[in-house]
């Protein structure tokens, strides 16, 4: 496990001096973890990019350029969304990457954006769906069984893909599956939502809710190819908000208790303490203690699961840990009776990955 060159980089301290062979491994790990651009941003911010040898530096700069481009494309996509939803009454709350980009929050830098996620009140879903379909988005074909599972049991409509821009949208009405033991009161989220500076048509979650969403997303997502990235995003948010808002930490603990998300937050915070050193200030520790201790098994699993997805970072237990985590996450998401739904989602994820890159799904003989 000494092969993990990536995770240690996120503690404070200068970049170690790596050999070219180590750089090869690091670039490989970072790329696989979707952290190549973020690593580049970090090196650039700290004035360490010039010291990187040319061969690996090209990959870093390429990733930086790609992330920069994607940020522009996200802003374009948001604007198209604005036009499509222009007639809608009621709030549109941006989530995750879309919110980070729109509000210029630290996790937006060096991010490789995927879908745009946003949340609307449940009652508005039909109208939102109609507006999106009219605006050139469409559902990828799903059989009626899967379709029903998404609409009824998952916390999102089936995803939307724009017919000629080929960009994806995910529409939510809450931040955790309503069927899970961590179901939250979506009304409370909407009530606390804040406007996005400069974009009057859209809002974002309050700082506490944004952090909690990050933590729950991490814990309840069974597939964690970018667990480390999600943790680092959370780290960015915590540092940013705690610096901007005095009293942020106790507010976070209070909100976690109120929404019933305490254990998930604690799990995430303990990982962060281990990886980046970000910790609850000692003065605020007592309120966090009341949120409870995460289970030792969950912690051990998660520690393995957030390692870069790379053979160099695996030990004998990693694969078992990932499988166990996958199952656990899905048990958390829905009662066992609905567990079959996860198969549909997995199939959908695979199908969607293929549809995104049709030219690369199967090796084809060249022309």
């Amino acid at each position, binding site marked *: 496990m000494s092969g993990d060159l990536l995770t240690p980089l996120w503690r404070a301290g200068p970049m170690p001096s790596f050999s070219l062979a180590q750089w090869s491994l690091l670039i490989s790990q970072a790329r696989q973890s979707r952290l190549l651009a973020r690593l580049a941003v970090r090196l650039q911010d700290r004035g360490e990019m010039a010291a990187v040898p040319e061969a690996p530096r090209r990959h870093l700069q390429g990733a930086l350029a790609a992330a920069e*481009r994607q940020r*522009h*494309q996200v*802003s*374009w996509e948001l*604007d*198209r969304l604005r*036009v499509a939803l222009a007639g809608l009454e009621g709030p549109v709350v941006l989530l995750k990457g879309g919110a980070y980009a729109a509000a210029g929050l630290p996790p937006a830098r060096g991010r490789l954006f995927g879908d745009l996620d946003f949340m609307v009140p449940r009652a508005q879903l039909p109208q939102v769906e109609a507006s999106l379909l009219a605006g050139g988005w469409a559902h990828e074909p799903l059989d009626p069984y899967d379709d029903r599972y998404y609409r009824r049991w998952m916390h999102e409509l089936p995803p939307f893909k724009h017919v000629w*821009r080929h960009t994806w949208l995910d529409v939510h009405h809450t931040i955790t599956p309503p069927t899970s033991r961590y179901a939250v009161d979506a009304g409370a989220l909407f009530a606390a939502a804040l406007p996005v500076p400069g974009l009057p048509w859209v809002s974002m979650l309050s700082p506490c809710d944004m952090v909690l969403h990050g933590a729950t997303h991490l814990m309840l997502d069974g597939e964690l190819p970018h667990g480390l990235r999600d943790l680092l995003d959370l780290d960015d948010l915590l540092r940013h908000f705690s610096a901007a808002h005095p009293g942020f930490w106790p507010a976070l603990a209070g909100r976690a208790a109120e929404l019933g998300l305490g254990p998930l937050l604690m799990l995430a915070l303990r990982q962060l303490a281990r990886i980046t050193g970000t910790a609850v200030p000692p003065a605020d520790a007592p309120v966090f203690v009341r949120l409870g201790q995460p289970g030792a098994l969950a912690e051990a699993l998660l520690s393995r699961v957030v390692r870069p997805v790379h053979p160099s970072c695996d030990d004998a237990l990693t694969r078992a840990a990932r499988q166990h985590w996958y199952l656990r996450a899905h048990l958390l998401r829905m009662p066992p009776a609905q567990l079959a739904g996860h198969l549909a989602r997995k199939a959908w994820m695979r199908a969607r990955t293929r549809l995104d890159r049709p030219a690369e799904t199967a090796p084809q003989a060249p022309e």
Partner: protein
Amino acid sequence: MVRLNWRSWGAESVAFEATSGEMVVVDALEAAVMACFEASPQDLDSLTEELAADMMLPADPALAERIQAIITAFVDRGWLEPAEPV
């Protein structure tokens, strides 16, 4: 948000919108319409007159219709937006 880059060769131009990354071939009239809008907001009648004069075309309803169609296409694409009513 809209940032247009142009390359022109004779009667044909290529417009590249840098934020979205979208690229499209446009003919002389389409390019002229966009050039007018890049300068300032326009209304259909004065735009039709101006372009008719510039390009030595008759300022007739057919031209106005064509220009309207061009504007609609650009609005759909997101490169033009109806101006806020005063």
